[in-house]
């Protein structure tokens, strides 16, 4: 488990287009109640908020998730990043995994998902990226929406109409992913750009959370806790209370305000 950054109740960043964004966030991770080691890692510092859920024998999963968040954290201090920077970080992370002599010899890999501050056509935007079955959700106006699509066997079966969403949770291959960072593959994230709006909240989490809580439960705890830190804590506690079968990692990011350059001038 590698933690980079943790919480911040007030952070101001000016994006390349001139818009000023005020953020607050909280991040936490827990080994869970059944696992001996925590193979999840996260980075929670602007401009990148991301979770990686490592896989592989012995310490290899931990090594892989640490490599990914460490590379993503190298953008720390910048105002914004784009897809080329994220692609490059993931490629470097895969190379790093290959250098883990004695640890990753037998193969290691990880999921990665997150949101990065960016700017598209001068408009402030979250760049949401994903490989694997960790997830990013958005809460806007009380509506919770899953922004990422899992790269998993059960997601494909649901898409093809072969099983229902409910059956997916209990499917024997619920954990089998179809895309990963590592295992010598070229990392290919899905990207999605989302407008940065005041009042919006993002949740970045590993499947240790989504296996224990339904989207209804996730929405409940996000709505019940207006501040990021108690919201992240409530989600983590609920996942542990429901069994905590896997490592659980939660990042809650709140967009407090967005000030456009024209507004400051006028």
């Amino acid at each position, binding site marked *: 488990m590698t933690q980079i950054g943790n919480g911040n109740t007030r952070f101001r960043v000016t994006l390349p287009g001139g818009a000023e964004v005020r953020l607050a966030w909280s991040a936490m991770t827990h080994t869970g109640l059944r696992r001996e080691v925590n193979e999840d890692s996260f980075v929670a510092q602007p401009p990148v908020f991301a979770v990686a859920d490592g896989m592989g024998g012995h310490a290899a999963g931990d090594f892989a998730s640490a490599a990914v968040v460490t590379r993503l954290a190298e953008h720390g201090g910048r105002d914004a990043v784009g897809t080329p920077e994220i692609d490059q970080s993931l490629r470097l992370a895969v190379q790093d995994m290959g250098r883990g002599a004695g640890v990753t010899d037998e193969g290691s890999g990880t999921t990665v998902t997150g949101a990065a501050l960016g700017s598209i056509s001068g408009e402030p935007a979250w760049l949401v990226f994903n490989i694997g079955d960790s997830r990013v959700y958005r809460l806007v106006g009380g509506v919770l929406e899953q922004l990422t699509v899992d790269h998993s066997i059960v997601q494909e079966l649901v898409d*093809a*109409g072969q099983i229902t969403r409910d059956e997916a949770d209990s499917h024997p291959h619920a954990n*089998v992913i*179809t895309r990963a960072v590592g295992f010598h593959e070229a990392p290919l994230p*899905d990207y999605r750009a989302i407008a940065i709006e005041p009042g919006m909240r993002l949740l970045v989490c590993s499947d240790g959370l989504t296996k224990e809580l339904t989207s209804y439960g996730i929405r409940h705890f996000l709505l019940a806790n207006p501040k990021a830190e108690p919201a992240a804590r409530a989600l983590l506690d609920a996942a542990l209370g429901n069994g905590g079968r896997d490592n659980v990692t939660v990042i809650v990011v709140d967009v407090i305000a967005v000030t456009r350059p024209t507004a400051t001038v006028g």
Partner: protein
Amino acid sequence: MVSGEVRAAVPTAAPREAGAESSPAWEVFVGERFIAAFAAPAPARVALAFTEAANGPTADLEDLVGRIPLGPDGVETFALMWWPPTGDTVTAVVRGDAAVDLASPGGRRRLDASGIRPWHLADFRDVIALRVSSSGAPLDAMDDADAAPVEPSRRFRARSVEWHAVAGAEVASPEARGDDAGGAAGAEASAPARSIAFRIAGGELRRSAVPVLIGRRPSRPLALPEPVELIRVEGGTGALSATHLELRLEGGRIVATDLRSTNGTVVRTGSGTRRMRAGESIVVAPGTVLELGGDTIVEILPTQDDQAHPDRQAPA
């Protein structure tokens, strides 16, 4: 994407019932591998660029999106659907009030822009029908009775545009959906008689439509009520466990599971080697080699269905 046809309800010169046209009119351009719809009337420079794209050599997605001017005086509302020459994905791009409704065997869904700028883009698989819609319209059945087939390379104005897989054209099975995991060719595939194709220790090609259990003396776990094929490896060394490995089809993917074998399973692909965790399940692409110990090597082979079907065409 499988073959299909584009249908549109083209309003007649004089609307039959004045004011009955509740849905907005679209200016539509149909190319060999794309359908683009703009709120009518489309600006002249857009119309020119897309007429050219529809008649010219097959354009890629970046090229098409690049033809749409954004920003001030740009296009506020558009929907673009594009599909690659092979594989079964459709990429939809929407901006403004435009939405794309997609039907797949798993149900119906809508892609709308939700205010996302400059546009919202997503890939979809197993699509059997598409419709250009607007975010305010209901997500109802996709079958406009007034819609008539239209030719490709055409520009027209319509109040609804749909694309349907033609009867008989099967939804491309996920068998060969541009395999992310192993880099296998993203060929199109048909669904019937899906099976796992593999070879053990350089032996003959085997196929199985049911899960396969491989080992020194394989036995069926009590928890598996369904039919399975037990494959006993003769002359396997002591490294091989009694019931060592399971191969199983899930959707179109082959999932290999190490059945908590004593000496483990090593996975070799073109790009590297890894060892499976005891009890781990992973997706294996054709070309993957699984080493169960000694000379017990299981090769995953392409199924016959993986070959591209020359008779399959993009909707035209």
